[in-house]
């Protein structure tokens, strides 16, 4: 996408101005987003983002700039402006580029640049709408969305890296609204992955619509949730957001390097119940959070974070590795050329165990079964996190009693990891978007159903 001579000239200029490291990140991002309401197309938006990000490092200091232009003069101007306060005699030499194409382990077929396939996507969303409405006459509305994008990236740096990759993202979802005249409630089903529209061959729009409707109807009948500290069984799939928030962000060198994570000095120590094994894996075929290479040009990898309760590794980008002495993990990610990369999660999950769902529920005198979770957030410095329950049930005397609404779970990472006492075998993954210092990136969360012995439930009862 960028003339190699222009990239070389830019990097040479940065090194001549004394930078310890220089990088050029080029991105072309083609987007097509379809939104439906009921059985109508509300809008379709499409476009192309294109830009070049330039990163210089002087020791631990990062200078970053970007532009929509690709000419050598513009890129050299940005370098000069960034380095104006730091220029010095050259400290290192730039390596000659060693061009490589990233090995593609995902193999997308029905890609956006071939055909946006709008009619086929609209048909899928309309079929999901019909299925949702067929579930009950209380389903008053549906909103569908299908987003596809094709992100081509090219990385050059002063270590001699020159590599290209193309990522194909697809995501489809349906939200159903149930209404009884006085109250409204919602349900949502989302599917996605790192592939093209061929994902539709594995999806059933009827199942999508029925599931969204089922959740909405359950929530419409839900009672206010009891509150206080109690045991909670967290469902599989998106329930894995608990680990993402409670622990994953705290293992990114973005916070570890600043000692702004409660886990920054805990490597080799027991930080979780021994039943907990956790992984961040960028290599899972066609999964939403996967990548072939990270946004610094490094092939991604599988990183075991916690083994039998012990913290064994962090997630490190190039700068984080330099600052902490930890090995890089192919985790340097960014939303777009507008952001400098940072250590970020990919597909993050707790590995399955052997406990049975029935045993988990039976072990609870008074608690909550959170079968579906929403998003959440964390303060890495204190480890305090929260996340929302989007479908939950009150559990009493070992039995699921009735649906509850408006619940949130809060705790700290160190506490909740020790409170996970049972992990089931019904492992599943789910797609999400994660926001942090380098923008919003696709991430997968996952787990089998698990039990937390003690956590604060916020409810409205």
């Amino acid at each position: 996408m960028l003339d190699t001579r222009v990239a070389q000239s830019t990097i040479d200029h940065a090194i001549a101005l004394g930078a310890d490291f220089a990088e050029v990140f080029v991105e072309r991002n083609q987007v097509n987003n379809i939104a439906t309401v009921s059985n109508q197309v509300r809008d379709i938006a499409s476009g192309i983002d294109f830009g070049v990000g330039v990163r210089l490092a002087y020791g631990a200091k990062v200078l970053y700039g970007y532009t929509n232009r690709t000419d050598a003069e513009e890129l050299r101007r940005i370098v000069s402006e960034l380095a104006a306060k730091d220029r010095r005699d050259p400290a290192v030499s730039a390596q000659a580029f060693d061009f490589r194409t990233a090995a593609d382990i995902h193999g997308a077929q029905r890609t956006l640049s071939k055909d946006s396939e709008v009619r086929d996507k609209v048909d899928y969303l309309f079929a999901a709408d019909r299925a949702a409405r067929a579930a009950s006459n209380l389903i008053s509305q549906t909103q569908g969305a299908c987003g596809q994008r094709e992100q081509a990236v090219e990385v050059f740096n002063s270590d001699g890296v020159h590599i290209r990759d193309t990522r194909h993202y697809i995501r489809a979802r349906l939200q159903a609204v149930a209404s009884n005249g006085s109250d409204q409630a919602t349900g949502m089903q989302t599917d996605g992955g790192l592939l093209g529209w061929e994902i539709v061959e594995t999806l059933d729009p009827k199942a999508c619509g029925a599931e969204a409707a089922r959740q909405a109807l359950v929530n419409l009948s839900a009672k206010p949730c009891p509150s206080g500290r109690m045991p909670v069984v967290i469902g599989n799939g998106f329930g894995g957001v608990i680990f993402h928030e409670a622990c994953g962000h705290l293992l990114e060198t973005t916070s570890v390097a600043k000692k702004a994570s409660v886990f920054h000095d805990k490597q080799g120590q027991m930080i979780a119940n021994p039943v907990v094994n956790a992984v961040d894996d960028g290599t899972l075929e066609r999964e939403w959070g996967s990548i072939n290479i990270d946004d610094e040009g490094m092939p991604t990898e599988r990183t075991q974070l916690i083994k039998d309760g012990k913290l064994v590794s962090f997630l490190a980008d190039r700068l984080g590795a330099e600052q902490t002495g930890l090995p890089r993990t192919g985790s340097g990610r960014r939303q777009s050329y507008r952001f400098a990369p940072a250590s970020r999660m990919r597909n993050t999950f707790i590995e399955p165990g052997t406990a049975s769902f029935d045993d988990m529920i039976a072990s609870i005198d008074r608690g909550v079964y959170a079968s579906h979770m929403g998003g959440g957030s964390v303060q890495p410095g204190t480890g305090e996190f929260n996340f929302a329950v989007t479908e939950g049930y009150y559990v009493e005397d070992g039995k699921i009693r009735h649906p509850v609404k408006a619940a949130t779970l809060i705790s700290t990472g160190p506490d909740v990891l020790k409170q996970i006492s049972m992990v089931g075998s019904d492992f599943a993954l789910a797609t999400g978007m994660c926001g942090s210092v380098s923008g919003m990136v696709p991430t997968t969360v996952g787990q089998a159903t698990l039990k937390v012995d003690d956590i604060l439930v916020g409810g409205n009862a």
Partner: protein
Amino acid sequence: MVATVEANAERVLDKVLAAGALGDLVVQEESSLSLKAHDGELEEHKVTSTRVYGVRVVKDDRAGIAYSEAADPAALDSMVEQAFVNATFSRVDPAESVATGDTILVTDDASLCPDDPTTVEAKIAAALYLERELTARDKVRNVPYNGVQDATVERHVFATTGRTAHSRDRVCSAFAYALLSDGDKDALEGVQSHTRRFDEIDTAWIVDETYQRCVAMLHGEALSSKHYDVLFDVEHQADLFAVFHDMFSAKSARDGINPLRDKVGERIAVDALTVRDAPLNADGLGYALFDDEGLPTTTTTLVDGGVLRTLVHNSATATHFDVPNTRHANRSPRGPLGVGLHQLEVAPGNVDETALTSGEYLEIVDLAGLHSGGNPVSGDFSYGAAGFLCRDGERTRPVRNITVAGNFYGMLNKIDAIGDTQHWNPERSALMARIRFADVAISG
């Protein structure tokens, strides 16, 4: 030679007209400088500039949109063609049109984009000062989040009817969040400040206020679960209204998901509540001379004495509902035509601050999980929270690791009192009289 924005707009709109359609074009240009410090050194120095074009075409009662970051003739032509392709799939909607009129609106640079003499060196010094001064305070472990920013956003709207509008806004900001530790206790707190001129940022205040907030919250603990009277600080009261702003959206009403869609003219809140949208209050950073269809804005009373007076409309929703357009069109270059609030106001009530803070109540100064924990369709919310238990205006103990839960639309009918003084939120985008909510569920 690089074409001007105006020349490119003319090219785009000529192509739209030549196809027998109407259309409008939004162009957004942004430039910014941001700086962050760590361990006494500048950690990040970011200089950015970007421009994006977004076109909306309306042909045969169908609307289509497309955008491009490239501004060469081929890219702009392709963008228009793609918008027409997208339009062929959209629903037939006679309400979709392009606002009529040929007015030309331009904002005043002197008030919205003032120059000041602050140099880049002075901005770097400000970033370093924030981190250095806080790190030097007792028990501060580090200042993981800090920085200063100077950003200018230019926005152009061009329509095939001849209407044009142009604004240029500058916002300077600074923030610091410090991590304070004492034994096994820690607290991460901070503040932010936003102004039009960099030299109006009071970095010493940010340092002092951040430190005081950390100290005040350090020994906070949960409190027993029950229902309390609650006062949110101005920042989080504005955040709550922002999460549930769809309650005023005519587009959500048209989509059948706004729970207040059939309530215009009906009571939705206590008598004391009056809510306005005041885009022309130039004291705020949410000032908007025009909406994203290029139409001049005006003050809109949304809730008057507890009665919902109107939803907010763009030209399409106003046509659909056959009501006046309130000029709340909202459209980014990359997105479809929607509606949005400009600068929300909760009008002053008749209770002075002493009466507002009488007896026992919980003052909430932090909410976690704002968007994930709130559902605008149902009104239900449940958030992590921190604050202070108070009595007669005095903070009696810090409180953290609690949750606050309820239904926002229901809470509007459980307002105990509204203060007689308005305050800006830190972003200066909402002007709020403080509300005392009764009987709010708190878990600890």
